[in-house]
């Protein structure tokens, strides 16, 4: 089998090897997400200098440093405004933003809503590990109710935020959810999001064995990945229900709205 599938050239072309090994913990889901992202760059035939990767702060924030493209690592919560500026100045660039749950919908939540509302051509990949990993396992906006964390030792009292529903409600024209247990599907969804001309959100359920797993009795990353497999179902809407499982799938792919940077250019032409 192994010798019949040609090795992917994506890591060679798209990963800055000199910055490896990466800082992520063993078993972290971010490696899977990053790998699938660069595979899609390769499959789409994009050039390294026409892709911009923007990140904020947190574990996910470190991703930009490893991608061999135009990259910017900005401050906590400000990845999307930065990406917005880049896209408005250079609509010809492929602008991709990798966000964590804390970065994307916590401290940067307002930007997330407004980027979705504007339908600006940014692919926002929100790696949702449901906890603040970088600072040591504090409850994040997506930490489920009742879940223990370093700031909620008896369980989180607040309801958790549903990123896909938020994106859906805020008007993102492409909304999907996938998880790290099925990297091939994750890759396909990321590719569709990258091809989408408008604001595209891919929420990725990703494992943090170090903190989320430890606090929820799943310190083994394999167990966490299995949990994703067993507790998700394919759905057409983030509002679909099936037992207590989490819906995954492409929830919206709407091509009827004009992308903002192009709409501006069209106005200038007039």
């Amino acid at each position, binding site marked *: 089998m192994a010798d019949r599938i040609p090795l992917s050239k994506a890591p060679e072309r798209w990963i800055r090897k000199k910055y490896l090994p990466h800082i992520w913990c063993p078993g972290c889901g971010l490696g899977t997400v990053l790998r699938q992202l660069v595979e899609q760059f390769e499959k789409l035939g994009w050039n390294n200098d026409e892709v911009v990767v923007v990140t904020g702060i947190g574990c996910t924030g470190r991703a930009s440093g490893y991608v061999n493209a135009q990259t910017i690592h900005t401050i906590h*919560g400000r990845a999307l405004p930065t990406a917005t500026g880049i896209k408005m100045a250079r609509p010809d660039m492929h602008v991709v933003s990798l966000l964590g749950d804390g970065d994307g919908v916590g*401290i940067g939540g307002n930007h997330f809503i407004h980027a979705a509302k504007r339908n600006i051509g940014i692919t926002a990949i929100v790696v949702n590990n449901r906890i603040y990993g970088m600072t040591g396992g504090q409850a994040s906006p997506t930490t489920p109710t009742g879940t223990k964390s370093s700031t909620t*030792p008896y369980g989180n009292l607040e309801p958790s935020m549903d990123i896909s529903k938020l994106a859906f409600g805020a008007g993102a024209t492409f909304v999907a959810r996938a998880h790290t247990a099925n990297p091939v599907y994750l890759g396909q969804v990321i590719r569709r999001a990258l091809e989408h001309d408008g604001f595209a959100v891919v929420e990725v359920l990703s494992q943090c064995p170090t903190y989320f797993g430890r606090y929820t009795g799943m310190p083994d990353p394999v167990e966490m990945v299995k949990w994703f497999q067993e507790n998700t179902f394919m759905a057409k809407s983030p509002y679909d229900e099936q037992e207590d499982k989490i819906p995954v799938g492409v929830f919206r792919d709407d091509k009827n709205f004009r992308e903002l940077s192009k709409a501006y250019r069209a106005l200038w032409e007039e």
Partner: protein
Amino acid sequence: MKVALETNQLMAFAMKQIEPHVVAAYPITPSTEVVQEFSQYVANGDVRTEFVAVESEHSAMSACLAASLAGARVMTATASQGLAFMWEMLHIASASRAPIVTIVANRALSAPINIHGDHSDAMGARDTGWIQLWAESAQEAYDNVIQAIRIGEDPRVRFPVLVNYDGFTTSHAVETVEVLEDEEVRKFIGSFPRPEVNFLNIEKPASFGVLALQDYYMEFKRAQAEAYKNVKPVVLEVAEAYAKLTGRKYGLIEEYKLEDADVVLVAMNSAAGTAKETVDKLRQAGKKVGVLKIRLFRPFPIEEVASALKGAKAVVVMDRAYTYGGPAGPLFCDIAAALTNVAQRPLLGNVVAGLGGRDITMEHVEHMFNLGYKALERGSFEPLVTWVGVRE
């Protein structure tokens, strides 16, 4: 009672003893553990504090501000970008006379991204109207935070206070410290003096965040500027009371072997300790050197600084932050201003060191003193600002 704790844990312990009514915070390295540990005291029912894990520092300070104006005793902790993100509300907190106590494990500012210690964050908050206390050690940080409550809440003061100590160097170091009993702390800080004007006083409804344009804005600000004159005596009074309780006496500044010193180094936070060690070593070699440590940085104790430095021949001011495009480091500018009207001024020079967590070693400090001696030979510091411990 003696305990051995990481400074951040110690600050959480102090917060437990203080038992503020409200804490709103957001995690950031290297101050995360302060609030994280404190949230566990809350969860365990050790304190009756309302703890709000907000979604950003901007929200943290907004929540703290509103809680304080509603008449609550309020604390939070942050660092670096977190303090920078609070910047808007920092001004409003001081102008609204909201005595919030914010613990800061001092850390560098982006860019480049750096999580380690320097003073850029607090220096960025220098002109926001917050009182600033600085600590060389865990013991001082603990003592400062307890005193900060009483200083800030004193009816003659009513200003918010930043309690600073170095990120990682101090925040993550374990030190054996002497702590008070909970009861002693609560007795020392007393119950929160509820301000006459507050959100929740339905007898006297009040409006906060009023508009004052060309007609009255300047009078508001003049009154605020004037009010800082009350701070120094209160800081000293509180220090006196604290000394009676603990035997540990603090001033606005600390003078270390200044009586006969020819060359004096001015320092803040942990580097002051390194500087004192170096002074002891150089004194053995017959050099008359000393250290001036600033404890109260805002309001800046001009008279005390001028008096402490009047006998020196050369003064080297160590800044662990820089005013980019400015004439010199921020502490230097204050020291120079303090000496403006002094008839016989020592030669003044500035060193910038320890940015982004770069070690400040005894060799570096020795070099700084040598710059002072060189200036004495030449008659001036050339150049005015020297960066120490940097590859150039």
